[in-house]
């Protein structure tokens, strides 16, 4: 088809759509891009929602603050970046400073207590020992999935089963189980807070 004319119905009550904007902030090598892709994959393929994942690259391959945005909605996602984050999860001090303003009032801020020290006046910060948990599971490389699990457990933006499927789809078989453990550790930690 050369041309597709959208029905007017397409243009009705778009504002009714429910959309979650999730941002991961960190530094090259921490796997936050992977975290974002896992979340988006789980939403778009296994939860049947609409999802877009984007990331910002700096010139540094290492050492610069970078971010990954995931937008999840029940309607097609047009603008692919976070405008006001519902959830901001950060694993790097510079990233905390740079992206903190993008969290909407009342949004969920999650940090790794070992890697980030929030400003004194920063209220309602959820600090979790993601790195420690990952180390206890055998490798700090799983830190990204621990915090991802926490986001999932906290927000239910996607189902745990879909996350597991996403992990199985993307990751090498030999590290799948480890990462499912990391995921569940994050989820249970979130739920044990009893916040969600």
């Amino acid at each position, binding site marked *: 088809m050369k041309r597709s004319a959208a029905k007017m119905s397409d243009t009705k009550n778009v504002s009714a759509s429910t959309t979650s904007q999730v941002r991961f902030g960190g530094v090259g090598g921490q796997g936050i891009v992977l975290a974002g892709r896992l979340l988006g994959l789980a939403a778009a393929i296994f939860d049947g929602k609409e999802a877009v994942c984007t990331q910002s690259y*700096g*010139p*540094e*391959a*290492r*050492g*610069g603050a970078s971010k990954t945005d995931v937008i999840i909605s029940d309607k097609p996602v047009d603008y692919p970046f976070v405008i006001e984050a519902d959830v901001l999860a950060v694993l790097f001090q510079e990233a905390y400073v740079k992206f903190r303003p993008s969290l909407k009032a009342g949004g969920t801020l999650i940090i790794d207590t070992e890697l980030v020290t929030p400003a004194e006046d920063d209220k309602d910060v959820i600090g979790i020992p993601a790195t420690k948990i990952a180390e206890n599971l055998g490798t700090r490389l799983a830190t990204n999935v621990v915090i991802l699990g926490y986001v999932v457990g906290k927000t239910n933006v996607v189902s745990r089963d879909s996350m597991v499927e996403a992990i199985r789809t993307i990751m090498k078989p030999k590290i799948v189980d480890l990462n499912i453990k990391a995921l569940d550790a994050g989820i249970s930690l979130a739920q044990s807070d009893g916040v969600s």
Partner: protein
Amino acid sequence: MTVTEQIIHPAANLHPIDHLLRADRLPHILCPGCGIGTVIHAYAHAIAGSGIDEDKHVCVSGIGCSGRAAGYMNVDSYHSTHGRALPFALGIAVYKPELNVTVISGDGDLTAIGGNHLIHAARRNVNLNVICINNFNYGMTGGQVGPTTPIGAKGTTAPNGAVEHPFNLPYLAKATGAVFVARWTVLHVREFQEAILRSMEKTGFCFIEVLAPCPTSFGRANNIGDGLHEMEIYRERCRIENGASNLEELDIDLIDESKSITVGNFVDIERTPFTP
């Protein structure tokens, strides 16, 4: 004589050579364990030691991680386009022969896309000092193989290992007419610095290949681990042979641990420099 104490300086301040660097731009963007910073550092020391007015030193770079070198040098410095650092520098050197022009760029920039300018600048014997930082791959774009990647070494565009025969850069430089040709590694920092000084003294086309670790891209792809591990390879396998006559045999094989890597100052001759 007192015992040593140690002084922890605040971030702003101040390495003794900082005046030759754009210190306000430090720390630079290069990865931990990357050898390019050591090259920048050595070039700064060479400027200081050259006895040439700092204002008469010019640094030109191309594109890539090594291409960022010019941006950190506190001399007149130009960050040109990919592969074109040499003709850009030729324009400066030919128009103002009183300037001491050093080109610092990467293997991909100088020998892949820039290869034609390299052989013609050497052929003409243009009065330039070229420091070719060879990290065996394209670092800035994430670790693609290039014309210096040893056969069998892996990169994102050669997942099963490079199959192309790489350039032997000292041989290429000699065969095309360079009057000074050397190969060192960033671990051989003193000899490397001496080589830069020699190239600054000489009139004509001087070519120095310096091997530098790229832990993030090349190292990771080839299980070399971090920058220190690549430095250890240099330490274990480099053999110094100044004036080596068999340049055609100086191919680098990083993979085969039995192969040594020959480094040294290989060529130092006189030939009519290019003065159009």
